[in-house]
């Protein structure tokens, strides 16, 4: 009786291990393939450090006048983990109240000849959306960011305030 019980338990455990093993293998393959191919994707290639890349480094200021937010935000481009990322570092509302911040808002995915693409994190009605955006360095002190997300499109201008 004991042997029977033991054999039954052993089969059950082996069956579960087989199920778990097969499932993990399937998940690894299905999730691994897009990560491997992402290396070849134009959007995930590290931006080349041309002259314009370094031109983005530093602090930028943008003004907003929408229902969501009225005021100014100071952004800072930093080089992190092999890519260029922009963080919002200071928020000032229309009444002059300001607060410090350190939120990741934009990740540069490509940049050449003063133009490129980025993943831009937007907040709308308390929800955060990550949208593909196009960026263009109009001149050394003006950056244009435009995006279109399910019909909601906008263009922002950031102005350089320090290197």
């Amino acid at each position: 009786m004991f042997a029977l019980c033991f054999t039954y338990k052993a089969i059950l455990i082996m069956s579960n291990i087989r199920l778990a093993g097969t499932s993990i293998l399937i998940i690894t393959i299905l999730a691994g393939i897009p990560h491997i191919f992402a290396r070849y994707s134009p959007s995930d290639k590290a931006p080349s450090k041309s002259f314009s890349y370094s031109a983005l480094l530093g602090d930028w200021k943008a003004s907003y006048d929408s229902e969501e937010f009225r005021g100014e935000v100071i952004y800072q481009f930093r080089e992190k983990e092999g890519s260029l990322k922009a963080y919002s570092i200071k928020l000032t509302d229309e009444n002059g109240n300001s607060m410090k911040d350190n939120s990741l808002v934009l990740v540069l995915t490509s940049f050449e000849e003063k133009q490129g693409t980025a993943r831009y994190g937007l907040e709308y009605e308390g929800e955060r959306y990550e949208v593909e955006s196009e960026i263009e360095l109009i001149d050394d002190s003006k950056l244009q960011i435009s995006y279109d997300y399910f019909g909601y499109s906008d263009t922002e201008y950031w102005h350089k305030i320090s290197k």
Partner: protein
Amino acid sequence: MIDFLVKNLEWEAVGYWFHVFNDLSIMYLIIPFFIVELIRYRYLNRLDKNLIFDSIANVITLGAFVAIEYIIGILFMTKVYFWVHEHISLTHLPLNWITIISCILLADFAYYWDHRMMHRIGIGWATHTVHHSSPHFNMSVAYRFGPLDAIFPIIFSLPIVMLGFDPILVLLSEVFVQTFQAILHTEVIGKLPKPIEYMFNTPSHHRVHHGSNQQYWDKNYAGILIIWDRLLGTFEPEKEAVVYGITKPLNSTNPIKVFFHGLTRLYHAIRETKGWKNKFKLLIKPPGWEPQQ
């Protein structure tokens, strides 16, 4: 070929094609097909009051399900998805064909396990039994949902977001799997050519899943690909004529009764079972489990 697969896609275009299949298919596929089914029922002299009221109850449960889904989504789930994507996810994947295909396949695999869990634990079956309780099998049954049906998939889709997939893409892929699965709820289509039956979930495979015949219990959980069942030991081909419904029939087309009967039955079972440990086990043990005397 690789260049095509890794080429960046616009969200607008991707969203549009998902909209055409996920949302509009109800107009150009599901409803026309349901009308064909009704004509067939009429021709076979099977179009009776029970079938009509059963179909109406199915649509009402869909309304209740969508309402619950929206409340959960608006209250917190979308926030959780985006928080997870931002804070505990692998490198974010670019939007290209490889990512979309992988995400749909992962959503399909997640659907398999979600579906299997709903059949194999008491609380899962308490909600999913609603879908299986119809004695009929047609397009409207695909939209017969239980009160907690919107909650269980979350457990399985959040890990996909953690693997670097965009939350919106994950949600669209999940709906894609559900929509594909919906069109399998029909008796009109017999068996399809062998290669299709081998790889994909088909109306024949899904009829088996809805069978109350003992050899068909807990079989064919797949959404799109039946190979998951073949790989994980839950595949059963359609041989014997399928008897639809559940072993303890509901015998009602009252939408409120239909929607809540699983939870009501579980509640009664918990109330009648002695001991907190046993009460808890009713939630996590397979349906029909009873404490040993």
